[in-house]
Protein backbone atom coordinates (compact mmCIF):
# COMPACT_ATOMS: atom_id res chain seq x y z
CA UNK A 1 0.00 0.00 0.00
CA UNK A 2 1.50 3.33 -1.02
CA UNK A 3 0.98 6.65 0.73
CA UNK A 4 -1.95 7.69 -1.45
CA UNK A 5 -3.74 4.40 -0.87
CA UNK A 6 -3.05 4.63 2.83
CA UNK A 7 -4.46 8.11 2.97
CA UNK A 8 -7.51 7.00 1.05
CA UNK A 9 -8.04 4.08 3.42
CA UNK A 10 -7.62 6.31 6.46
CA UNK A 11 -10.10 8.76 5.01
CA UNK A 12 -12.72 6.13 4.21
CA UNK A 13 -12.48 4.38 7.59
CA UNK A 14 -12.58 7.74 9.31
CA UNK A 15 -15.71 8.56 7.36
CA UNK A 16 -17.40 5.44 8.73
CA UNK A 17 -16.42 6.28 12.27
CA UNK A 18 -17.22 9.96 12.12
CA UNK A 19 -19.05 10.97 8.96
CA UNK A 20 -18.59 14.66 9.56
CA UNK A 21 -14.84 14.45 10.07
CA UNK A 22 -12.52 15.44 7.24
CA UNK A 23 -8.85 14.56 7.01
CA UNK A 24 -8.17 17.87 5.30
CA UNK A 25 -9.05 19.61 8.55
CA UNK A 26 -6.08 18.07 10.28
CA UNK A 27 -2.95 20.17 10.24
CA UNK A 28 0.49 18.54 9.98
CA UNK A 29 1.27 19.16 13.65
CA UNK A 30 -2.12 18.14 14.99
CA UNK A 31 -3.31 14.82 16.29
CA UNK A 32 -6.34 13.22 14.68
CA UNK A 33 -8.12 13.04 18.01
CA UNK A 34 -7.72 16.70 18.79
CA UNK A 35 -8.27 18.10 15.32
CA UNK A 36 -11.35 16.00 14.64
CA UNK A 37 -12.75 15.88 18.13
CA UNK A 38 -12.55 12.11 18.27
CA UNK A 39 -13.13 10.58 21.67
CA UNK A 40 -11.35 7.45 22.80
CA UNK A 41 -14.12 5.24 21.50
CA UNK A 42 -14.07 6.89 18.07
CA UNK A 43 -10.32 6.40 17.98
CA UNK A 44 -10.68 2.75 18.93
CA UNK A 45 -13.30 2.31 16.21
CA UNK A 46 -10.88 3.90 13.77
CA UNK A 47 -8.12 1.48 14.78
CA UNK A 48 -10.49 -1.47 14.52
CA UNK A 49 -11.60 -0.36 11.07
CA UNK A 50 -8.02 0.06 9.86
CA UNK A 51 -6.96 -3.24 11.35
CA UNK A 52 -9.82 -5.07 9.67
CA UNK A 53 -9.20 -3.36 6.34
CA UNK A 54 -5.55 -4.34 6.14
CA UNK A 55 -6.04 -7.68 7.88
CA UNK A 56 -3.30 -6.96 10.37
CA UNK A 57 -3.57 -6.71 14.15
CA UNK A 58 -2.65 -3.29 15.50
CA UNK A 59 -1.38 -3.65 19.07
CA UNK A 60 -2.25 -1.01 21.64
CA UNK A 61 1.41 0.02 21.99
CA UNK A 62 1.33 1.15 18.34
CA UNK A 63 -1.55 3.57 18.87
CA UNK A 64 0.72 6.60 19.28
CA UNK A 65 2.02 6.04 15.75
CA UNK A 66 -1.52 6.50 14.48
CA UNK A 67 -2.10 9.76 16.22
CA UNK A 68 -1.23 12.04 13.30
CA UNK A 69 -2.18 11.81 9.63
CA UNK A 70 1.42 11.46 8.49
CA UNK A 71 2.15 8.92 11.20
CA UNK A 72 -0.90 6.86 10.35
CA UNK A 73 -0.07 6.85 6.63
CA UNK A 74 3.49 5.76 7.33
CA UNK A 75 2.30 3.09 9.74
CA UNK A 76 -0.28 1.67 7.36
CA UNK A 77 2.24 1.62 4.51
CA UNK A 78 4.84 -0.18 6.54
CA UNK A 79 2.43 -2.73 8.02
CA UNK A 80 1.17 -3.63 4.55
CA UNK A 81 4.66 -3.94 3.16
CA UNK A 82 4.25 -0.93 0.89
CA UNK A 83 5.68 2.48 1.11
Amino acid at each position, binding site marked *: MNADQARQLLSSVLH*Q*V*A*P*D*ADLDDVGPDETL*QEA*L*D*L*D*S*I*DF*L*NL*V*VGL*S*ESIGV*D*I*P*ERDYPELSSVEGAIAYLSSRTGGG
Partner: protein
Amino acid sequence: MGDFTMPSLGADMEAGTVTEWLVKPGDEVHRGDIVATIETEKSTMEIEIFEDGVVEDLVVPVGEQVAVGAVLAHVRAPSAAPLTAPRTGAPASPGAPPVVTGEAGKVEGVHGKPVVLSPVVRHLASEIGVDLERLHGTGAGGRITRSDVERAAHTVTRAPEGRPGEAPRPDAGRARASPYARRLAAEHGVPIHSLAGSGPGGSVIARDVRAAAGVRAEALRGAAAPVPAGSATKGRTAMRRAIGALMARSKREIPHYYLATTIDVAAAADWLERANLERPVNARLVLPALLVKATALAVHKVPEMNGFFLDGDFAPSAPVHVGVAISVRGGGVIAPALHDADQLEIGELMTRLSDLVARARNGRLRASEMSDPTITVTNLGDLGVETVFGVIYPPQVALVGFGRVSDRAVARDGLLGIRPCISATVSADHRVSDGHRGGRFLAEIDRLLQEPESL
Protein backbone atom coordinates in the same frame (compact mmCIF):
# COMPACT_ATOMS: atom_id res chain seq x y z
CA MET B 1 -52.12 42.83 40.91
CA GLY B 2 -52.81 44.30 37.49
CA ASP B 3 -50.93 43.79 34.30
CA PHE B 4 -49.70 40.46 33.14
CA THR B 5 -46.83 41.29 30.80
CA MET B 6 -44.71 39.53 28.21
CA PRO B 7 -41.90 38.08 30.24
CA SER B 8 -38.29 38.02 29.19
CA LEU B 9 -37.37 34.41 28.59
CA GLY B 10 -33.72 35.00 28.10
CA ALA B 11 -31.32 37.88 27.88
CA ASP B 12 -31.49 37.88 24.10
CA MET B 13 -35.28 37.83 23.82
CA GLU B 14 -36.86 41.01 22.51
CA ALA B 15 -40.34 39.90 21.58
CA GLY B 16 -42.66 36.94 21.76
CA THR B 17 -45.81 35.70 20.08
CA VAL B 18 -48.80 34.42 22.00
CA THR B 19 -49.56 31.04 20.51
CA GLU B 20 -52.27 29.97 22.91
CA TRP B 21 -54.28 31.38 25.75
CA LEU B 22 -55.18 28.82 28.40
CA VAL B 23 -57.42 31.22 30.29
CA LYS B 24 -60.16 33.67 29.38
CA PRO B 25 -61.83 36.63 31.03
CA GLY B 26 -63.50 35.65 34.27
CA ASP B 27 -61.16 32.78 34.97
CA GLU B 28 -59.66 32.50 38.37
CA VAL B 29 -55.91 31.99 38.24
CA HIS B 30 -53.50 30.90 40.91
CA ARG B 31 -49.84 31.47 41.35
CA GLY B 32 -47.97 28.94 39.24
CA ASP B 33 -50.80 28.29 36.78
CA ILE B 34 -49.75 28.13 33.17
CA VAL B 35 -51.87 30.70 31.44
CA ALA B 36 -50.42 30.97 27.95
CA THR B 37 -47.88 29.61 25.58
CA ILE B 38 -45.41 31.98 24.00
CA GLU B 39 -43.24 31.40 21.00
CA THR B 40 -39.89 33.07 20.75
CA GLU B 41 -37.13 32.68 18.20
CA LYS B 42 -35.72 29.86 20.24
CA SER B 43 -38.65 27.83 21.36
CA THR B 44 -42.20 27.70 22.58
CA MET B 45 -42.64 28.05 26.30
CA GLU B 46 -45.45 27.83 28.75
CA ILE B 47 -45.85 30.96 30.77
CA GLU B 48 -46.85 30.89 34.39
CA ILE B 49 -48.63 33.56 36.34
CA PHE B 50 -47.10 34.60 39.63
CA GLU B 51 -50.03 35.89 41.61
CA ASP B 52 -53.57 34.82 42.39
CA GLY B 53 -56.35 36.75 40.71
CA VAL B 54 -59.12 36.83 38.17
CA VAL B 55 -58.51 37.44 34.49
CA GLU B 56 -60.24 40.65 33.49
CA ASP B 57 -59.41 40.76 29.81
CA LEU B 58 -56.92 39.48 27.31
CA VAL B 59 -55.13 42.35 25.61
CA VAL B 60 -53.04 40.49 23.07
CA PRO B 61 -54.76 38.00 20.77
CA VAL B 62 -53.27 34.71 19.70
CA GLY B 63 -50.80 35.14 16.87
CA GLU B 64 -49.74 38.65 17.73
CA GLN B 65 -46.12 39.42 18.43
CA VAL B 66 -45.35 41.97 21.11
CA ALA B 67 -42.25 43.27 22.81
CA VAL B 68 -41.02 42.10 26.17
CA GLY B 69 -42.85 44.04 28.85
CA ALA B 70 -46.01 44.64 26.79
CA VAL B 71 -49.27 44.05 28.65
CA LEU B 72 -50.76 40.70 27.67
CA ALA B 73 -53.73 40.64 30.01
CA HIS B 74 -55.27 42.48 32.91
CA VAL B 75 -55.65 40.49 36.07
CA ARG B 76 -57.56 41.66 39.11
CA ALA B 77 -56.82 40.66 42.67
CA PRO B 78 -59.43 38.12 43.87
CA SER B 79 -61.04 40.47 46.37
CA ALA B 80 -61.19 43.53 44.18
CA ALA B 81 -64.34 44.82 42.41
CA PRO B 82 -67.39 42.71 41.69
CA LEU B 83 -67.18 40.06 39.04
CA THR B 84 -68.61 40.60 35.64
CA ALA B 85 -68.22 37.02 34.55
CA PRO B 86 -69.42 33.93 36.41
CA ARG B 87 -66.70 32.93 38.74
CA THR B 88 -65.23 29.49 38.63
CA GLY B 89 -66.08 27.42 41.61
CA ALA B 90 -69.36 29.12 42.39
CA PRO B 91 -71.41 26.79 44.55
CA ALA B 92 -73.79 24.67 42.54
CA SER B 93 -77.42 24.59 43.56
CA PRO B 94 -77.82 21.88 46.17
CA GLY B 95 -78.91 18.55 44.83
CA ALA B 96 -78.40 19.54 41.24
CA PRO B 97 -77.07 16.74 39.10
CA PRO B 98 -73.41 17.15 38.38
CA VAL B 99 -72.86 18.89 35.10
CA VAL B 100 -69.54 18.20 33.58
CA THR B 101 -68.54 19.60 30.29
CA GLY B 102 -64.91 20.29 30.80
CA GLU B 103 -65.53 23.83 29.68
CA ALA B 104 -64.52 26.81 31.68
CA GLY B 105 -67.05 28.02 34.18
CA LYS B 106 -69.42 25.13 33.74
CA VAL B 107 -68.07 22.53 36.07
CA GLU B 108 -70.52 22.55 38.85
CA GLY B 109 -70.38 19.66 41.14
CA VAL B 110 -69.05 16.37 42.32
CA HIS B 111 -71.72 14.58 44.26
CA GLY B 112 -73.50 17.85 44.73
CA LYS B 113 -70.47 19.59 46.16
CA PRO B 114 -68.89 22.61 44.60
CA VAL B 115 -65.80 22.02 42.55
CA VAL B 116 -63.00 24.47 42.72
CA LEU B 117 -60.41 24.23 40.06
CA SER B 118 -58.17 26.47 38.07
CA PRO B 119 -58.67 27.20 34.38
CA VAL B 120 -55.49 25.41 33.59
CA VAL B 121 -56.68 22.23 35.21
CA ARG B 122 -60.00 22.52 33.40
CA HIS B 123 -58.23 23.06 30.15
CA LEU B 124 -56.03 20.06 30.74
CA ALA B 125 -58.99 17.88 31.69
CA SER B 126 -61.00 18.83 28.64
CA GLU B 127 -58.04 18.34 26.36
CA ILE B 128 -57.25 14.88 27.53
CA GLY B 129 -60.83 13.82 28.10
CA VAL B 130 -60.79 13.28 31.82
CA ASP B 131 -64.21 13.30 33.49
CA LEU B 132 -63.94 15.90 36.21
CA GLU B 133 -67.14 14.44 37.66
CA ARG B 134 -65.31 11.29 38.60
CA LEU B 135 -62.37 12.98 40.20
CA HIS B 136 -61.74 13.38 43.84
CA GLY B 137 -59.82 16.56 44.43
CA THR B 138 -56.80 16.27 46.68
CA GLY B 139 -55.97 19.96 46.79
CA ALA B 140 -56.87 22.39 49.52
CA GLY B 141 -60.62 22.33 50.18
CA GLY B 142 -61.18 19.46 47.79
CA ARG B 143 -59.72 21.43 44.91
CA ILE B 144 -58.93 19.33 41.88
CA THR B 145 -55.28 19.78 41.07
CA ARG B 146 -53.27 19.23 37.97
CA SER B 147 -51.87 16.01 39.34
CA ASP B 148 -55.36 14.69 40.07
CA VAL B 149 -56.20 15.11 36.40
CA GLU B 150 -52.91 13.65 35.25
CA ARG B 151 -53.33 10.67 37.53
CA ALA B 152 -56.82 10.16 36.17
CA ALA B 153 -55.46 10.34 32.65
CA HIS B 154 -53.25 7.37 33.41
CA THR B 155 -56.17 5.48 34.90
CA VAL B 156 -58.24 6.16 31.83
CA THR B 157 -55.60 4.40 29.74
CA ARG B 158 -55.97 1.24 31.68
CA ALA B 159 -59.77 1.29 31.65
CA PRO B 160 -61.38 -0.50 28.74
CA GLU B 161 -62.06 1.86 25.91
CA GLY B 162 -65.61 2.66 24.91
CA ARG B 163 -67.71 2.31 28.01
CA PRO B 164 -71.36 1.43 27.33
CA GLY B 165 -73.38 4.35 26.11
CA GLU B 166 -70.31 6.32 25.21
CA ALA B 167 -69.47 7.54 21.78
CA PRO B 168 -66.48 5.79 20.30
CA ARG B 169 -63.31 7.48 21.36
CA PRO B 170 -61.89 9.62 18.64
CA ASP B 171 -58.58 7.89 18.92
CA ALA B 172 -59.94 4.35 18.54
CA GLY B 173 -57.88 2.36 16.09
CA ARG B 174 -54.84 4.53 16.50
CA ALA B 175 -51.68 3.71 18.36
CA ARG B 176 -52.31 2.66 21.93
CA ALA B 177 -51.45 5.63 24.04
CA SER B 178 -52.72 7.40 27.08
CA PRO B 179 -54.65 10.61 26.45
CA TYR B 180 -52.05 12.49 28.40
CA ALA B 181 -49.32 11.00 26.24
CA ARG B 182 -51.25 12.10 23.14
CA ARG B 183 -51.49 15.60 24.43
CA LEU B 184 -47.80 15.72 25.20
CA ALA B 185 -46.99 14.24 21.83
CA ALA B 186 -49.03 16.90 20.08
CA GLU B 187 -47.41 19.57 22.18
CA HIS B 188 -43.90 18.43 21.42
CA GLY B 189 -44.53 17.45 17.82
CA VAL B 190 -43.57 13.85 18.45
CA PRO B 191 -45.19 11.35 16.08
CA ILE B 192 -46.83 9.05 18.58
CA HIS B 193 -46.94 6.07 16.23
CA SER B 194 -43.20 6.03 16.05
CA LEU B 195 -42.78 5.47 19.76
CA ALA B 196 -42.13 2.19 21.49
CA GLY B 197 -44.53 2.10 24.41
CA SER B 198 -43.32 1.14 27.84
CA GLY B 199 -46.75 1.21 29.45
CA PRO B 200 -49.12 -1.67 30.12
CA GLY B 201 -49.52 -3.83 27.03
CA GLY B 202 -46.96 -1.77 25.17
CA SER B 203 -49.06 1.37 25.23
CA VAL B 204 -47.33 4.68 24.86
CA ILE B 205 -47.34 6.63 28.09
CA ALA B 206 -46.33 10.14 28.96
CA ARG B 207 -42.83 9.07 29.92
CA ASP B 208 -42.17 7.68 26.46
CA VAL B 209 -43.27 10.92 24.86
CA ARG B 210 -41.28 13.09 27.22
CA ALA B 211 -38.17 11.09 26.64
CA ALA B 212 -38.64 11.14 22.89
CA ALA B 213 -39.39 14.85 22.90
CA GLY B 214 -36.20 15.45 24.79
CA VAL B 215 -34.02 13.70 22.30
CA ARG B 216 -35.98 13.92 19.09
CA ALA B 217 -34.94 17.34 18.02
CA GLU B 218 -31.47 16.78 19.32
CA ALA B 219 -31.23 13.72 17.14
CA LEU B 220 -32.04 15.68 14.03
CA ARG B 221 -28.54 16.87 13.53
CA GLY B 222 -27.03 13.55 14.47
CA ALA B 223 -29.45 11.66 12.25
CA ALA B 224 -28.62 13.69 9.23
CA ALA B 225 -25.95 12.36 6.95
CA PRO B 226 -23.72 15.02 5.49
CA VAL B 227 -26.08 17.70 4.23
CA PRO B 228 -25.72 20.92 2.30
CA ALA B 229 -24.34 23.76 4.35
CA GLY B 230 -27.61 25.66 4.46
CA SER B 231 -29.68 22.90 5.97
CA ALA B 232 -26.84 21.87 8.27
CA THR B 233 -26.92 25.32 9.75
CA LYS B 234 -30.66 25.10 10.10
CA GLY B 235 -30.40 21.66 11.72
CA ARG B 236 -27.80 22.95 14.13
CA THR B 237 -30.01 25.85 15.03
CA ALA B 238 -32.97 23.58 15.62
CA MET B 239 -30.90 21.26 17.74
CA ARG B 240 -29.46 24.14 19.70
CA ARG B 241 -33.00 25.27 20.36
CA ALA B 242 -34.15 21.84 21.42
CA ILE B 243 -31.23 21.41 23.76
CA GLY B 244 -31.80 24.88 25.08
CA ALA B 245 -35.44 24.22 25.80
CA LEU B 246 -34.74 20.92 27.49
CA MET B 247 -31.89 22.24 29.57
CA ALA B 248 -33.87 25.34 30.50
CA ARG B 249 -36.65 23.06 31.68
CA SER B 250 -34.13 21.08 33.65
CA LYS B 251 -32.70 24.14 35.33
CA ARG B 252 -36.17 25.57 35.91
CA GLU B 253 -37.74 22.46 37.37
CA ILE B 254 -34.98 20.39 38.88
CA PRO B 255 -33.31 21.59 42.06
CA HIS B 256 -29.84 20.31 41.24
CA TYR B 257 -27.14 19.62 43.74
CA TYR B 258 -23.59 18.91 42.70
CA LEU B 259 -20.90 16.74 44.26
CA ALA B 260 -17.38 16.00 43.10
CA THR B 261 -14.71 13.58 44.14
CA THR B 262 -11.32 12.49 42.83
CA ILE B 263 -10.91 8.83 42.03
CA ASP B 264 -7.56 7.07 41.74
CA VAL B 265 -7.75 5.05 38.52
CA ALA B 266 -4.33 3.39 38.66
CA ALA B 267 -5.89 0.00 39.34
CA ALA B 268 -8.36 0.42 36.49
CA ALA B 269 -5.69 1.61 34.05
CA ASP B 270 -3.33 -1.27 34.95
CA TRP B 271 -6.10 -3.78 34.61
CA LEU B 272 -7.13 -2.37 31.22
CA GLU B 273 -3.57 -2.52 29.92
CA ARG B 274 -3.19 -6.14 30.96
CA ALA B 275 -6.62 -7.14 29.67
CA ASN B 276 -6.02 -5.48 26.31
CA LEU B 277 -2.79 -7.39 25.74
CA GLU B 278 -4.87 -10.52 25.44
CA ARG B 279 -7.67 -9.01 23.46
CA PRO B 280 -7.84 -8.70 19.67
CA VAL B 281 -8.13 -5.15 18.40
CA ASN B 282 -11.89 -5.29 18.01
CA ALA B 283 -12.41 -6.50 21.58
CA ARG B 284 -10.20 -4.02 23.38
CA LEU B 285 -11.55 -2.03 26.26
CA VAL B 286 -11.33 1.66 27.04
CA LEU B 287 -11.73 3.37 30.38
CA PRO B 288 -15.18 4.83 29.60
CA ALA B 289 -16.56 1.27 29.48
CA LEU B 290 -15.39 0.72 33.06
CA LEU B 291 -16.81 4.08 34.11
CA VAL B 292 -20.21 3.27 32.64
CA LYS B 293 -20.24 -0.18 34.24
CA ALA B 294 -19.20 1.16 37.63
CA THR B 295 -21.91 3.80 37.46
CA ALA B 296 -24.55 1.24 36.49
CA LEU B 297 -23.56 -1.05 39.36
CA ALA B 298 -23.37 1.76 41.90
CA VAL B 299 -27.02 2.47 41.19
CA HIS B 300 -27.84 -0.82 42.95
CA LYS B 301 -26.57 0.68 46.19
CA VAL B 302 -28.21 4.05 45.68
CA PRO B 303 -31.38 3.52 43.62
CA GLU B 304 -32.47 7.15 44.07
CA MET B 305 -30.13 8.00 41.21
CA ASN B 306 -31.91 5.82 38.67
CA GLY B 307 -35.37 6.52 37.30
CA PHE B 308 -37.69 9.35 36.47
CA PHE B 309 -39.32 12.21 38.28
CA LEU B 310 -42.84 12.33 36.88
CA ASP B 311 -46.04 14.00 37.97
CA GLY B 312 -44.59 15.06 41.28
CA ASP B 313 -43.20 11.68 42.22
CA PHE B 314 -40.00 9.74 41.81
CA ALA B 315 -40.48 6.52 39.90
CA PRO B 316 -37.38 4.41 40.47
CA SER B 317 -36.37 2.14 37.62
CA ALA B 318 -35.30 -1.45 38.15
CA PRO B 319 -33.52 -1.70 34.81
CA VAL B 320 -30.42 0.46 34.52
CA HIS B 321 -30.33 2.06 31.08
CA VAL B 322 -27.32 4.33 31.03
CA GLY B 323 -27.60 7.26 28.66
CA VAL B 324 -24.21 7.97 27.17
CA ALA B 325 -23.68 11.58 26.19
CA ILE B 326 -22.15 11.65 22.72
CA SER B 327 -21.17 14.93 21.19
CA VAL B 328 -22.18 15.59 17.65
CA ARG B 329 -19.45 17.51 15.93
CA GLY B 330 -20.63 20.80 14.62
CA GLY B 331 -22.78 21.23 17.68
CA GLY B 332 -25.07 19.36 19.94
CA VAL B 333 -25.17 16.28 22.02
CA ILE B 334 -27.29 13.16 22.14
CA ALA B 335 -27.46 10.65 24.96
CA PRO B 336 -28.81 7.33 23.74
CA ALA B 337 -29.23 4.47 26.18
CA LEU B 338 -26.99 1.52 26.77
CA HIS B 339 -29.66 -0.88 27.89
CA ASP B 340 -29.23 -2.94 31.07
CA ALA B 341 -25.67 -1.71 31.45
CA ASP B 342 -25.50 -3.21 34.95
CA GLN B 343 -26.11 -6.69 33.56
CA LEU B 344 -23.60 -6.62 30.72
CA GLU B 345 -20.28 -8.42 30.93
CA ILE B 346 -17.57 -5.80 30.39
CA GLY B 347 -16.55 -7.08 26.94
CA GLU B 348 -20.15 -7.06 25.81
CA LEU B 349 -20.66 -3.61 27.30
CA MET B 350 -17.64 -2.34 25.40
CA THR B 351 -18.93 -3.80 22.13
CA ARG B 352 -22.32 -2.19 22.62
CA LEU B 353 -20.80 1.10 23.70
CA SER B 354 -18.58 1.39 20.68
CA ASP B 355 -21.47 0.30 18.46
CA LEU B 356 -23.65 2.96 20.07
CA VAL B 357 -21.07 5.67 19.51
CA ALA B 358 -20.54 4.63 15.90
CA ARG B 359 -24.27 4.58 15.21
CA ALA B 360 -24.78 7.90 16.94
CA ARG B 361 -22.23 9.38 14.57
CA ASN B 362 -23.96 7.80 11.62
CA GLY B 363 -27.47 8.65 12.69
CA ARG B 364 -28.65 5.09 13.00
CA LEU B 365 -29.88 5.03 16.56
CA ARG B 366 -33.00 3.12 17.46
CA ALA B 367 -36.08 4.75 18.86
CA SER B 368 -35.85 2.68 22.02
CA GLU B 369 -32.32 3.88 22.65
CA MET B 370 -33.37 7.46 22.28
CA SER B 371 -36.30 7.20 24.58
CA ASP B 372 -35.49 5.54 27.81
CA PRO B 373 -32.19 6.23 29.58
CA THR B 374 -32.71 6.08 33.34
CA ILE B 375 -29.47 7.88 34.24
CA THR B 376 -26.87 9.61 32.09
CA VAL B 377 -23.09 9.50 32.05
CA THR B 378 -21.06 12.20 30.37
CA ASN B 379 -17.38 11.81 29.84
CA LEU B 380 -15.63 14.95 28.69
CA GLY B 381 -12.24 13.67 29.65
CA ASP B 382 -11.20 13.13 26.08
CA LEU B 383 -11.43 16.85 25.50
CA GLY B 384 -9.12 17.58 28.36
CA VAL B 385 -11.78 18.85 30.71
CA GLU B 386 -10.94 18.27 34.32
CA THR B 387 -14.35 18.38 35.96
CA VAL B 388 -17.88 18.21 34.55
CA PHE B 389 -20.84 19.80 36.31
CA GLY B 390 -23.68 18.41 34.28
CA VAL B 391 -27.28 19.38 33.75
CA ILE B 392 -29.76 16.58 34.38
CA TYR B 393 -31.81 15.34 31.42
CA PRO B 394 -35.43 15.57 32.50
CA PRO B 395 -37.21 13.48 33.58
CA GLN B 396 -34.10 11.67 34.81
CA VAL B 397 -32.82 12.47 38.28
CA ALA B 398 -29.05 12.18 38.06
CA LEU B 399 -26.16 12.76 35.71
CA VAL B 400 -22.66 11.47 36.35
CA GLY B 401 -19.70 13.31 34.84
CA PHE B 402 -16.14 12.15 34.39
CA GLY B 403 -13.23 14.38 33.51
CA ARG B 404 -9.83 13.57 32.03
CA VAL B 405 -7.35 11.21 33.55
CA SER B 406 -4.37 13.14 34.81
CA ASP B 407 -1.39 12.35 36.99
CA ARG B 408 -1.71 13.92 40.40
CA ALA B 409 0.35 13.95 43.54
CA VAL B 410 -1.59 11.80 45.94
CA ALA B 411 -0.89 10.96 49.56
CA ARG B 412 -1.54 7.28 50.05
CA ASP B 413 -0.66 5.15 53.06
CA GLY B 414 1.44 7.98 54.41
CA LEU B 415 3.47 8.34 51.22
CA LEU B 416 3.27 10.89 48.48
CA GLY B 417 3.00 9.37 45.04
CA ILE B 418 2.06 10.18 41.47
CA ARG B 419 -1.17 8.45 40.51
CA PRO B 420 -3.50 8.72 37.53
CA CYS B 421 -6.72 10.27 38.81
CA ILE B 422 -10.08 11.23 37.41
CA SER B 423 -12.66 13.63 38.72
CA ALA B 424 -16.12 12.13 39.14
CA THR B 425 -19.14 14.32 39.71
CA VAL B 426 -22.80 13.75 40.17
CA SER B 427 -25.57 16.26 39.51
CA ALA B 428 -28.66 14.96 41.25
CA ASP B 429 -32.24 15.96 41.86
CA HIS B 430 -32.83 17.28 45.36
CA ARG B 431 -36.50 16.32 45.17
CA VAL B 432 -35.37 12.72 45.15
CA SER B 433 -32.13 12.52 47.11
CA ASP B 434 -29.80 14.48 49.33
CA GLY B 435 -26.09 15.11 49.24
CA HIS B 436 -25.51 12.31 51.68
CA ARG B 437 -26.91 9.75 49.26
CA GLY B 438 -25.18 11.38 46.32
CA GLY B 439 -21.91 11.13 48.22
CA ARG B 440 -22.56 7.49 48.93
CA PHE B 441 -23.15 6.97 45.22
CA LEU B 442 -19.81 8.51 44.22
CA ALA B 443 -18.05 6.55 46.93
CA GLU B 444 -19.54 3.36 45.52
CA ILE B 445 -18.34 4.22 42.00
CA ASP B 446 -14.87 4.80 43.49
CA ARG B 447 -14.95 1.47 45.35
CA LEU B 448 -15.98 -0.42 42.20
CA LEU B 449 -13.23 1.18 40.14
CA GLN B 450 -10.65 -0.07 42.64
CA GLU B 451 -11.71 -3.62 41.75
CA PRO B 452 -11.81 -3.44 37.95
CA GLU B 453 -11.67 -7.21 37.60
CA SER B 454 -15.07 -7.43 39.24
CA LEU B 455 -16.69 -5.06 36.74
